[in-house]
Structures are given as structure tokens and as C-alpha cells.
């Protein structure tokens, strides 16, 4: 078909789109058929048309299904994982409760076995060792250090990956490590964080966004309970480098840190660790204050000094903190029953 070119032929694209007549091939084909004497339109009932219709319907359905289902699959998997996590956590908590009951039974049986046979010195030594090792709850005066995240990040319940890991205002494991070390150095005799007693096997580390103590994730606010002489600890803590660290946290990052003395604090017990490889050096178990030189850098091997003697509680407790802030698993065998 010959059409005289329009005056606005250069706007061909726009006119094609906007004033679009039907596909020109239809008109051309109809024209040809009319010239050949046939009706202008072919039947719509041919096999090809039915097949094409089937194919189009099929493709529509497949496209709708495949482009829609991806999100729900991911969501389902996530819900399943969350359910599994909560189930395992309840099991872990139950087992921890069982462990505590059994330990109480063991302690009672041991006391009744040792007391009548006149081994009261052994029993007294055992009790003091237990206090130092953190396997019995203790009470006494001390300091209460409370940390929380800075205000802007506190209210954000959004996806924590959105701000790319620890924002400036979040409390990190390093902060807790420094503060705990400072408290030990200031004279604390027992420390617990959010109800987790720090023993010779405890580590403060972080994994992902959570701070872990003894492999248990803590929720903020973080309350560090340190039992010791209130006045001495407060003075030594404030005067040390940790005191200026804490001040820098408050001033530069807006992390609220409160330190208050308390006349009566309690630190709960933690479970008794089972040592598989460490053996006492002198089997006669003479109570000497052997401070085995366990350097903080060699953290995995720092816990190999069997049962520390009770009187040296202050000096022997500090090396157990792993100095590495990265979330790498410390290689020490951790036989305590913790939630998986």
C-alpha cells in the first residue's frame, strides 16, 4: 500500500506510539484477501490459534507463579528457623535447670559425706575454692555498672544490617571486656553480667550483633555486678585508664554508663566446668598461691591451670578474658552445658 508521507514524518516514532492504528499488517493482509475474493478476516477457529492461546495461558500462569513465590519461600524458611531456635532454647534452659538441681544434690551429698568423717578442713577449702571458681552464688557489697546503647540506635527496631553492623552508639564486647578488666583490677572478687557469672572459663565476645558471655547472648541494658569493697573499687576504677575510657564512651558516643555502689549485691553461680585435659601439677594438693603465668594473649591455653586456689581470687581471675574482640571462636574446650 502506498501512503503519501505525512508532513510530520520525522515524528514517526511518536505518531506510531500515540495515534497507533491497528498493526498495519492486518490491514494489508485483509486488503490482499479482499482483492483475492476471500472474506477479509480468517477464521479464529484454526488449530494454530488454539495452540497459541494455550501457550499464552500457560506462559501467563508460569510467569505469575514463578515471579511471586520467591519471597514466601524465604519467609517460610525464616519462620521455621525461628521456631527451631526457640524450641532449642527452651530445651537448653531446661537442661541448665537440671544441671543446677543436680549440682545442688552433689554438693549436699559431698557435704554430708565429708563432714562426719572429720574432713572439715577439706570441706572448708572446697567451699572457698567454690566461691573463687564461681560455682556457688555469693553476696556482698560492691559496684553496679550499667551500660546501654546510645539513644538513637536504641529506638530503631529496624533491620540491624541496615546500619552495617555496630553503629557508633552501640555497646560492643570490647567495652564490656575493658570494664570487666578494670573491675577485676580495682579489686572485685566476683563479677556477673546480666546474671551470667564470670568464671575462669568465661569469655566475653560478640557474634553478629549480640554480645555473648559464656555463649549466652545478652540483651541490653548490660548490668555488671561486681562484689568487693565499694569505696576502694570506686576509687581505683575511676582513677584508672578504664575510668577515662568510660568517660570517653559517654562523651563521644553517648553511651550512658552509670556506676553506683550497693551495699548488698548477689552474683549467681555458674555451672562447674569439667576439665578433661588439665591435671593438677602436685597431686598432694597443697594450697599454695601458685599464680600460673597465663598470658591473656594465649587465651585458649589460659584456662589450663586447674582449680585456682581460693585465697588468690583477685589475681587469678583476670586472664580468663579473651583479649581478641573479633567474633572468632576461642579454641578452648568448653565443656559447660550451654545452649546450642
Amino acid at each position: 500500500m502506498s501512503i503519501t508521507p505525512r508532513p510530520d514524518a520525522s515524528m514517526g516514532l511518536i505518531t506510531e506510539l500515540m495515534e497507533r492504528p491497528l498493526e498495519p499488517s492486518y490491514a494489508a493482509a485483509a486488503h490482499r484477501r479482499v482483492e483475492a475474493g476471500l472474506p477479509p478476516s480468517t477464521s479464529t477457529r484454526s488449530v494454530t490459534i488454539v495452540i497459541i492461546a494455550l501457550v499464552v495461558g500457560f506462559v501467563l500462569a508460569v510467569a505469575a507463579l514463578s515471579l511471586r513465590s520467591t519471597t514466601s519461600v524465604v519467609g517460610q524458611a525464616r519462620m521455621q528457623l525461628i521456631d527451631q531456635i526457640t524450641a532449642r532454647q527452651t530445651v537448653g534452659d531446661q537442661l541448665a535447670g537440671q544441671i543446677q538441681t543436680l549440682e545442688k544434690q552433689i554438693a549436699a551429698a559431698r557435704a554430708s559425706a565429708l563432714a562426719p568423717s572429720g574432713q572439715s578442713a577439706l570441706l572448708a577449702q572446697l567451699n572457698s575454692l567454690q566461691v573463687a571458681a564461681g560455682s556457688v552464688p555469693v553476696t556482698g557489697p560492691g559496684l553496679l555498672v550499667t551500660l546501654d546503647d546510645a539513644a538513637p540506635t536504641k529506638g530503631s527496631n529496624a533491620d540491624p544490617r541496615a546500619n552495617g553492623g555496630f553503629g557508633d552508639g552501640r555497646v560492643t564486647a570490647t567495652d564490656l571486656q575493658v570494664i570487666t578488666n578494670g573491675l577485676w583490677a580495682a579489686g572485685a572478687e566476683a563479677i556477673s553480667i546480666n546474671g551470667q557469672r564470670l568464671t575462669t572459663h568465661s569469655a566475653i565476645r560478640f557474634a553478629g550483633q549480640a554480645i555473648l558471655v559464656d555463649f549466652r547472648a545478652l540483651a541490653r541494658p548490660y548490668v555488671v555486678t561486681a562484689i568487693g569493697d565499694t569505696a576502694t573499687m570506686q576509687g581505683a576504677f575511676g582513677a584508672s585508664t578504664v575510668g577515662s575510657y568510660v568517660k570517653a564512651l559517654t562523651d563521644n558516643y553517648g553511651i550512658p554508663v552509670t556506676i553506683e555502689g550497693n551495699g548488698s549485691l548477689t552474683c549467681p553461680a555458674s555451672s562447674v566446668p569439667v576439665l578433661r585435659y588439665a591435671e593438677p601439677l602436685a597431686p598432694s594438693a597443697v594450697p599454695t598461691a601458685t599464680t600460673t603465668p597465663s598470658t591473656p594473649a594465649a587465651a585458649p591455653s589460659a584456662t589450663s591451670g586447674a582449680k585456682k586456689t581460693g585465697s588468690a581470687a583477685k589475681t587469678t581471675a583476670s586472664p580468663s578474658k579473651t583479649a581478641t574482640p573479633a567474633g572468632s571462636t576461642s579454641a578452648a574446650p568448653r565443656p559447660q552445658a550451654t545452649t546450642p
Partner: protein
Amino acid sequence: MIPALGLLVGVVIGLLLHPTVPLCLQPYLPIAVIAALDAVFGGVRAVLDGVFNDKVFVVSFLSNVLVAAFIVFLGDQLGVGSQLSTGVVVVLGIRIFSNVAAIRRHLFKA
């Protein structure tokens, strides 16, 4: 009417079979669907205009789908994939709109 039934049967078969689309074809699926829709609406309008031709319909359907997929593929290779696919979607959308408007005029005389 028969082709409409064929369309329905195709949709039902697709829903029942639920085939998995190979991962390499997945980006082209939306574009192919829109191109197919454009050809289908063009065919319906031709039927209502009285100039339907099945050969033209088949050829326009296949060429629409292939050309649209090819343009998206080319855009991906050149690095302008999203822009080209936006352009294709815009053009096909305009064509679908004008065809549907013509069909509406035929059906409802309004």
C-alpha cells in the same frame, strides 16, 4: 470464543503443572509475558475490526516475544539492562493501552 477457552485451559494447565523456570530464563519472563499480551490484544482488536489474519497474529506474537527478550538480553550485555527493559515495557504498555481502548470502543460503543 474457542481461543478464549484455549487461553483458560492453558492457564489451568500452567497452574496445575507448576513447572520450574530455569534460572537463566527468569529475567526475561516478565518481558515475554507483556509482549505476548500485546500481540494477543492486537489480535482481539483485529477480530473486532474484521481483519483478523492468523498468520499475521502468529508472526506478530512470536516476533514480539523474541524481539523483546532480545532487547533485554542486549541491554544486560551492554550494562543498560534496566533502562532498556523499562523502555520496552513502556512501549508495549502504550500499545496494549491503545489496543484495549479500541476494543473497548467496539464492545461498549463508548
